[in-house]
């Protein structure tokens, strides 16, 4: 309740009026461009949520995704491990322990963060033991895990991360790169057959294409591949 009826509205209108005559702050990019120094790239900044906790989870996905490695992270991660940053001060976000576990709740569409099914860890523990919990043997660990479980369940990746000390983002980044590794069980995989052929068959397809091209029969190849796609 305001002291005088209508005062709130008047104050609002006064602000509107004042803003109306102020110079405009909008820059009509791209017609108008601000004069920024040539090396300006902006500054990385970590945001806080409404409770004042850092939103960053130190998942390293952004640092992993950056092709020229200009993003970096440092501080204590959600597993209580300390990471040192090795970039220039502008390029890392320091994550401190007060922004502890906030991983729950928010739905993120990425497979890696969606609700995941549990696995029986005994076999995985044996695999990890066999490779001495050595993160530099990650590919061998992933290969063996896939051979054991049929695919790479998220729970397994989390356990591998925990036991080897390798960042989850590193493991996920590695596993998603290699064509023979998969995150879904072969049967449940949508269009399982098609993706399986695509995975194994890129080279076979290239060789077949080369043969067709050399024999001058790309017309038939074009038709055949169009048919197989539909």
């Amino acid at each position, binding site marked *: 309740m305001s002291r005088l009826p209508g005062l709130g509205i008047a104050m609002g209108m006064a602000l509107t009026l004042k803003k109306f005559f102020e110079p405009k702050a909008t820059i009509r990019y791209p017609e108008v461009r601000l004069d920024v120094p040539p090396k300006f790239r902006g500054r990385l900044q970590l945001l806080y949520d409404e409770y004042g906790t850092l939103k960053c989870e130190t998942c390293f996905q952004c640092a992993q995704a950056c092709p020229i490695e200009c993003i970096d992270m440092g501080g204590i991660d959600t597993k209580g491990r300390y990471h040192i940053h090795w970039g220039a001060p502008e390029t890392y976000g320091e994550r401190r322990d007060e922004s502890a576990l906030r991983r729950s709740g928010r739905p993120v569409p990425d497979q890696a963060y969606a609700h995941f099914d549990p696995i029986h860890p005994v076999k995985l523990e044996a695999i990890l033991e066999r490779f*001495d919990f050595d*993160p*530099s043997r990650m590919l061998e660990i992933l290969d063996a895990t896939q051979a054991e479980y049929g695919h790479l369940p998220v729970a397994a990746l989390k356990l591998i991360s925990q036991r080897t000390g390798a960042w989850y983002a590193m493991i996920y980044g590695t596993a998603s790169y290699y064509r023979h590794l998969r995150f879904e069980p072969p049967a449940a995989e949508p269009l399982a057959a098609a993706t399986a052929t695509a995975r194994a068959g890129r080279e076979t397809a*290239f060789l077949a294409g*080369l043969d067709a091209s*050399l024999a*001058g029969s790309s017309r038939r190849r074009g038709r055949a591949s169009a048919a197989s796609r539909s």
Partner: protein
Amino acid sequence: MTTVLRTPRAWPAILLPRGVADPLDLDEARKGGAFEGLRRALLDLGGPGTISAVAASGLRGRGGAGFPTAEKWRAAATAATADVVAPGFGSGHGTMARRYVVANGYGADPSSRTDRTLMERNPYAVLEGALIAATAIGAGDAIVAVRAEATEAIAALETAIARMVDANLAGSDILGSGVNVELSVRPVQGAYMLGEETVLLKAIEGKRGQPEQRPPQPATHGLFGQPTVVQNVQTLAAVPWILANGPVAFAAIGSKASPGTILVSVRAPGGAGVAEVPVGTPLREIVALAGKSRSDGLKAILVGGPAGGILPEELADTAYEFEALRAVGAHVGSGSVVAADKRACVVDLARLLTRFCADEACGKTIPCRIGLRRVSEIGDRIATGLPKPTDGQLLADLSADIVGSALCDHERLATLPFASGMRYFRSELDEHILRSSCPAGVCRPIAVAAGGAH
């Protein structure tokens, strides 16, 4: 198994010796001179002596770029081992300061079987070469990286290693010299790019396979940040012969600038197979090894694999040699030589190759990820009759930009099919772009010029 093509008897057979019944028979191999080079390296020459001998032989890398082998070894031998492990996976348990030798037997190009054939038919030479390299630079580990699908090669190497360890030719205190080298086979798979050396090292470290900025070169900062010699398996397989027969004998073979022999994977209308040829053999003779062709005449030769150059018939006398090929816009690359006759359309071929290269790009850098995709799209436009009049120029500009801003050799080389196609088959390309017709009658749905093949 791949066919090994018969070559003239006068040509030396260093990598694939003739008339070997069982390549895994160690006694037979030793009677034929195997492990004589290793004995010399260990007991007579020592590290610097071995490197000097390799330098005197003029041996250059067979992995495609033709880098002088001895220079790499020297750099790795003198580089300090790092005592901190590169950031990333944290400190691995097994990573003390040390040096490594990595034999690159990945064989990325699906149309080339050279390295796989070598490992199946002469595993001892590859392993002996790796051991010699390891002793020369003071490495404690020699890792042969092989594609996981090449099961025969892996089996051959594993059997060979077991027999060598039993005969005290690998492992600890080799031949009583006090030198220890751990030999191992590492199957890797899952991406074309694994053939590139920095990517291969990433895979062995268990990381995502994307190349690194160079310098620093792997020779000084390689596997786990340690000095590492990455060498193609053919390069290593030539080393025992050099030490056993002397560098002068090796330098006398092949061309002056790059002596020795090299394996080629030939694919021609007349036949296909792998052959060992002296470096510098004219392309025409290499194509002829595949046998007589039934169809009409040679039109083009694709040299260097998916990212190779397409050379016209007039250049068929070019020497198969690093500089000569580079000068005409091709490269040794994966060792694949593919002959195309009149039935093939250069635009169609270049489009297929570029498409493969774009699909296989690792995605780390933008010229690679997006530039190659655009080159491939322009190729598609030209081949499907929807080209823009400026596409020729656009293709040339874009290729130059990609080459200029590339991180690794893949993207630089992946522009070659179209660059060489434009250079040598301009009229055929213009026919597509300006008149929407395909002289060979291959491309669809554009109009077929009168007299086309179909």
